[in-house]
């Protein structure tokens, strides 16, 4: 007599890369599952109900997780975890399934692109990093669930969905008075004293990214960074650039709406994790 288990995956919604999401969902479901306890005495087999004895987990040896890579322009560009739009236009797809012990369980290449050996090696290194992160997230989630169940709190699918309506959410608009921005900026520039700390040389991180002094905490997210990068790139008097930054700051809020119009207004708290692997000789290729 043996146990038989069946795993059904229902896809509710997706924005690309179903394989990765499904692999995570599948392995987590199996880890979370509990089967009835059994005791065997010679020929006699006793199956206990969940009321008699606590159900026991399956013996899962390892957690293989899939990571997908989309290739563009004959392998020139590589995207980790492609979105729906990116999948529609990609040349080929490479899927690597790995567990946290860095053992490759599956490699699948589709789309007919020719892959060079070190591309595949690079992908497997990225996979190792991602799988380690994801496995840790899974462990935390499983522990959390166990803890909540023990303490008698609420658990399950309904609790894991954030408490907001799906179809409509309100975003309070911040009214910004941009009437006198020019004059205000001029005033600030003429009134202010030169900064005590003069940064003669911006710190060059990588080509295209420079830093002048320590900035204030970023409160807008990605949008602001690109604005500040542009401001930082302007060479010139450090004083002037410092005030440029300030001016950019006040202008940013008015241009925020302009740039925002080009992007869909969505509440995204699940951005793909940025993973940049820099090899000493190679140029940093764009990976996501």
């Amino acid at each position, binding site marked *: 007599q043996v146990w038989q288990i069946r795993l059904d995956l229902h896809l509710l919604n997706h924005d690309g890369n179903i394989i990765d999401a499904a692999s995570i969902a599948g392995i987590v479901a199996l880890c979370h599952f509990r089967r009835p306890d059994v005791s065997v005495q010679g020929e006699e087999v006793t199956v206990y109900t969940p009321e008699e004895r606590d159900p026991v987990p399956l013996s899962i040896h390892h957690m293989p997780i899939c990571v997908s890579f989309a290739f563009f322009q004959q392998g020139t560009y590589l995207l980790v975890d492609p979105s729906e739009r990116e999948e529609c236009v990609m040349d080929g797809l490479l899927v690597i399934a790995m567990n946290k012990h860095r053992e490759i369980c599956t490699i699948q290449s589709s789309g007919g692109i020719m892959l060079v050996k070190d591309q595949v090696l690079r992908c497997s290194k990225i996979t190792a990093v991602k799988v380690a992160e994801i496995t840790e997230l899974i462990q935390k989630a499983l522990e959390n669930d166990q803890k909540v169940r023990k303490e008698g709190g609420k658990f399950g699918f309904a609790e894991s969905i954030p408490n907001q309506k*799906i*179809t*409509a959410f309100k975003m309070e608009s911040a009214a910004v008075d941009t009437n006198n921005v020019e004059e205000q900026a001029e005033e600030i520039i003429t009134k202010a004293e030169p900064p005590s700390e003069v940064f003669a040389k911006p710190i060059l991180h990588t080509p295209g990214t420079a830093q002048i002094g320590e900035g204030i905490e970023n409160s807008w997210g990605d949008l602001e960074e690109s604005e500040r990068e542009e401001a930082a790139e302007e060479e010139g008097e450090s004083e002037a650039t410092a005030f440029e930054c300030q001016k950019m700051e006040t202008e940013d809020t008015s241009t925020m709406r302009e740039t925002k*119009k*080009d992007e869909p*207004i969505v509440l995204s708290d699940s951005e793909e994790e940025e993973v940049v692997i820099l090899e000493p000789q190679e140029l940093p290729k764009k990976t996501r």
Partner: protein
Amino acid sequence: GGAYWVDSQQKRYVPVKGDHVIGIVTAKAGDVFKLDVGGSEQASLSYLAFEGATKRNRPNVQVGDLIYGQFLVANKDMEPEMVCIDSSGRSSGMGIIGQDGFLFKVSLGLIRKLLAPKCEIIQELSQLYPFELVLGMNGRIWVKAKTVQQTLIIVNILEACEYMTAEQRKQAFAKLSGN
């Protein structure tokens, strides 16, 4: 009396007879085209189901083209069939969708909202730029404006309409038309 209309938020399309949808040609098999309409099965479309099509005069359809048509047959027992002519033999707007433009997916509920008579969103959009628009009941929208940038702006607005309140939408339009 006694009939209820239950509206739901759904992205998965199930073919229904009479629905006008946008299909993507995946194969040409002799006299019949196979179309992906987003359902569990591909729909079939005969080459004669176009206005003015005869055995000699075939429509110029290639794999990857977009077709706007309606379902002649759609039930759970049979493969769905599409046509690009209505019952009187006229195309009435159906057929091959032109070159360029942009195809994207939204939820079925948003399509129904956009197709409602006197839809505000469409009226406000038409004040912005001139554009061509095809709405498929299978959740697919095709947009074409004069420039790529204008097209993408319209795409983004339509996608965002899923989640924006009327107030937010009016604000977004105000910012755009002020530009």
